[in-house]
């Protein structure tokens, strides 16, 4: 699998022999239409809020995001498709929400945001939206390799009172039904996304927490090194699939 992972990174498999399915592919036509609706997709409220925040100067007197980075549609295009990425100062990878929060703290003199706050979800949704339709293209920085392997180890380790690994459901049993729920392959193409069950926007880390709670395991914290490692692995596994955020899920 390690070799296969490296291969995936170098060359995403050709579409013809690709049996990967996203959560979007598994949804009903009604939910797909809701996601595709340029005004009716509820995730777009967060995107619009994020857009406003991106160009608003903070009251610390610092530059706005746009002041440093320029027009979001150009400057942020493709960034989400590449993340997580290495942070030199922390000497570890960070996910996109982590990067945005670091910019607020380091470059705008603002306090950090709660991971599941509307403000951080909005900024992340806005930046991710600038990659909508672009293929996931993991960062080739070799310092990330070990983290991806750690993510793969986590993904394939049984955990919780129910003693199941992520891979048992999302690799081996994908397409089957857990009671009424279709088990998806678990591709991270749509986050942050609007989940009808949550009745709000949520992050990939929140989704990880749901699945860990489901097998009665102790979730890792939002933004934890473990979740960044899992995301790095899942993004490599989903390399070449298009970013579809803000997605809808049932």
């Amino acid at each position, binding site marked *: 699998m390690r070799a296969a992972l490296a291969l995936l990174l170098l060359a995403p498999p050709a579409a013809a022999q690709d049996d990967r399915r996203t959560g979007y592919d598994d949804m009903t036509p009604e939910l797909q239409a809701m996601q595709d609706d340029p005004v009716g997709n509820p995730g777009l409220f967060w995107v619009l809020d994020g857009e406003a925040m991106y160009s608003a100067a903070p009251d610390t007197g610092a530059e706005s995001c746009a002041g440093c980075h320029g027009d979001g549609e150009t400057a942020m295009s493709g960034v989400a498709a590449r993340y997580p990425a290495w942070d030199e100062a922390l000497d570890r990878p960070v996910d996109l929400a982590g990067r945005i929060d670091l910019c607020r703290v380091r470059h705008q003199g603002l306090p950090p945001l709660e991971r599941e706050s509307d403000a951080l979800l909005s900024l992340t949704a806005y930046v991710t939206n600038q990659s909508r339709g672009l293929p996931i293209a993991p960062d080739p920085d070799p310092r990330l390799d070990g983290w991806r392997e750690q993510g793969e180890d986590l993904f394939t380790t049984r*955990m919780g009172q129910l003693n199941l690994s992520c891979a048992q459901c999302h690799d081996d049993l994908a397409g089957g039904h857990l009671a009424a729920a279709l088990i998806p392959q678990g591709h991270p193409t749509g986050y942050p996304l609007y989940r009808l069950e949550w009745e709000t926007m949520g992050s990939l880390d929140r989704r990880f927490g749901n699945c*860990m709670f489901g097998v009665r395991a102790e979730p890792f914290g939002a933004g934890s090194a473990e979740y960044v490692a899992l995301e790095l692995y899942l993004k490599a596994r989903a390399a070449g699939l298009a970013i579809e955020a803000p997605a809808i899920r049932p």
Partner: protein
Amino acid sequence: MPRSRMSRSASLALALWAGAASGQGLPEPLTDVPGDPAAGREVVVTRERGLCILCHAGPFPEVPFTGDLAPDLTGVGARLTVPELRQRMVDSRVVNPATIMPPYHATDGLARVGERWQGTTILTAQEVEDVVAYLATLTEDGT
């Protein structure tokens, strides 16, 4: 992308396998109170208690959605003896190290169990006996 990997706990169970799974299962009841099939049926059909219907279908038409990840429990009382059923319920890893069926009355080899479930088993000893008693009644086709 199917893949099967044996976890450490699974290979441990494999080491124990030769002795425990040679057909006998667990002949000794876990409690002194004989299992109550009606109580066992309640555990099986109540999603949050038994979790069974997440994976198994069976002779319980009142359950609207059952999973399709495991054999239908219809007739299982004719396929397996009571000791075999008890072994399946207590810890299916002994029968099949790669099983996805959770260990209902064993805690060894588990990792990162959530705080609120630590030191507990999914079912109590009496619940296991009740479920075994219920499963043992499923001997006829269609029940």
